[in-house]
């Protein structure tokens, strides 16, 4: 706690006035137990208020005390029996207090155990979260790489259109000619059936000469559905076919999913 700011807030003046709520009073009392400078401030406030209110009193008031003394002496006799009764109460209160204390202690122990369990749980959760963060960071790095590729103006963008096999399929090729690399975005292709794999082809159009760029073996595992394949060819078009696992030497044209020509 910033005790200087606390003192400067003016709460201690109100504490001495007695204008705080019971709850606020209890809070100030706790602060006073901790900070001697707060107590010193309360003493100063009280001293100055004693001067101020004392100054307002009309005259010295010593002669009043004898009257007060007379009144409390005449009252003091019947006080005694009340006292005797009270001793009973104090024993009851004593017992009640010790029972309350025991219950309190038991509660504390129980709370302690619950808190320890919570700590262990939190540690496990933290480890899980750390793992998740690592994964997220890797994902982020991949995404950043992809983004930098997409933003590069020297890269050719070739949309691949759907073919008869699946009219909903689509894909895109991003071709970095200078570095002889292609990035294949296949988010629009259906998941290949078991035992089958997509194969990417670079095509020369006349005469039609397909060259395999590779198979997308990790289609299911790759969340981005973007694959990077080397392409040293002077491609005129790109196509993607569904082939048996391991790929084929030449494309199965009945299983041509998407196709697009390079326009340049």
């Amino acid at each position: 706690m910033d005790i200087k700011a606390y003192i400067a807030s003016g709460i201690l003046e109100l504490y001495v006035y007695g204008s705080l709520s019971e709850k606020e009073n209890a809070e100030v009392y706790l602060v006073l137990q901790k900070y001697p400078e707060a107590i010193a401030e309360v003493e100063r406030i009280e001293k100055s208020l004693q001067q101020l209110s004392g100054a307002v009193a009309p005259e010295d008031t010593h002669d009043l005390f004898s009257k007060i003394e007379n009144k409390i002496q005449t009252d003091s006799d019947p006080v005694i029996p009340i006292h005797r009764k009270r001793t009973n109460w104090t024993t009851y209160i004593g017992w009640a207090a010790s029972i309350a204390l025991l219950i309190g202690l038991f509660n504390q122990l129980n709370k302690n155990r619950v808190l320890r369990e919570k700590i262990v749980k939190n540690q496990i959760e933290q480890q899980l979260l750390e793992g998740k963060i690592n994964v997220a960071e890797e994902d982020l790095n991949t995404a950043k790489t992809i983004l930098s590729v997409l933003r590069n103006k020297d890269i050719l963008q070739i949309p691949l259109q759907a073919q008869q096999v699946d009219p909903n399929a689509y894909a895109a090729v991003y071709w970095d000619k200078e570095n002889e690399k292609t990035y294949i975005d296949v988010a629009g292709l259906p998941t290949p059936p078991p035992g089958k794999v997509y194969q990417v082809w670079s095509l020369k159009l006349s005469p039609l000469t397909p060259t395999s760029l590779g198979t997308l073996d990790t289609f299911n595992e790759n969340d981005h559905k973007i694959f990077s394949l080397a392409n040293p060819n002077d491609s005129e078009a790109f196509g993607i076919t569904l082939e048996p696992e391991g790929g084929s030497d030449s494309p199965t044209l009945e299983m041509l999913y998407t196709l697009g020509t390079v326009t340049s």
Partner: protein
Amino acid sequence: MQPTELIIALQNKNQAALKSIYDMYSANVYGIVFNILKDETLSEEVVQDVFIKIWNNSNSYSEKKGRFFTWILNIARNAAIDKTRSKNFKNTSQNLTIDYFVDILEDKTNFSSKIDSIGIKKYITTLEPLCKKIIDLLFFKGFTQKETAEELDIPLGTVKTRNRICIDKLKQVLEI
């Protein structure tokens, strides 16, 4: 200072302790009561009542609830406000011209030796009108922050900080 030992002695019904407490706080009680009643005879009655209450109810005081000074302040304010409802008060209050502690202090020439009268006079002459009103309501009359804000038509949030500034000046002038 909290007179801790005196309080314990008082709670054990030690009359000498009551006398010491009377010497320490009677002027404060008188000041608070007189500021509310503005009548010496009535105020003297109430001051006696206050110390009899302090004697009879000393066991209800606990340090956890607040300062002993504050506890006495509350008894004094309540006793004085009770008195304002009495018939005697209603008869005497009709020809009152003074409003609050500042008026009392401005007219006053005789001070007890315990009081830094030069400092107090200086404080009163340099104090802003708003400070005078805030101190009168919060300290002397025991208003809450909310009641003070409403009475003076100022935002609730400024009551506390403003009052702090007013009391800071008092401490400075009195070199406390």
